């Protein structure tokens, strides 16, 4: 069970990578669960303010489900326009 995790903007720089494959630990079923799991390993995620998440390229809440093969992106609030 693994997901493709993407990082953008300031979070990408703080993580030192734009993408990685992450094995979903048993019991992790939501975007928020994955965030908490990654936060345990990376200070950049632990300290990120107002982290946003997209699952399979749709902006979702942290309660959104994640499953094997999903693309999960974490990023700061958007600033385009």
């Amino acid at each position, binding site marked *: 069970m693994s997901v493709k995790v993407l990082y953008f903007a300031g979070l990408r720089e703080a993580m030192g990578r734009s993408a990685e494959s992450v094995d979903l630990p048993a019991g992790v079923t939501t975007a928020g669960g994955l965030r908490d799991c990654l936060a345990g390993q990376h200070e950049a995620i632990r300290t990120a303010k107002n982290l946003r998440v997209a699952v399979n390229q749709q902006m979702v809440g942290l309660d959104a489900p994640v499953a094997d093969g999903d693309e999960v*992106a974490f990023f700061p609030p958007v600033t385009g326009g």
Partner: protein
Amino acid sequence: MTVSVQETDFDCGAEVAVLSAGDDEAGAVASFVGLVRGGEILAMTLEHYPGMTEQALQKIVDQARQRWEVRRVRVIHRVGRLAPGDQIVFVGVSSRHRGDAFAACEFIMDYLKTQAPFWKKEETPSGGRWVDARESDEDAARRWSGGN
């Protein structure tokens, strides 16, 4: 093509002309152009989430179409490195009457600001910095959900 994400510049006049070309039902065209502000900024770099960006913009256009009677819509957002004075974003809408074009154009910009995955990094004399999201942009998007 409704939505484009591109590094190259765009021609506002040409984009506006296309919105009503050959369509004699169109009675109004409203457009917005966003520019890079100067000041202490030397340049900025626009990053985005390829694939999601186009979908997010199309979804915003679809929502505008559900709310207002619009005919043609065009959204162009540039990415990459831009200098003060450069054009960043174009939104154009045609409709039978001006009210729909004005409202849809503003709605698309307000939603783009909070829903489309773009990020700006500014280059200043003291180094690079990521632009923080503004609460006022969230407020601008929220006002559309409070009734019309």
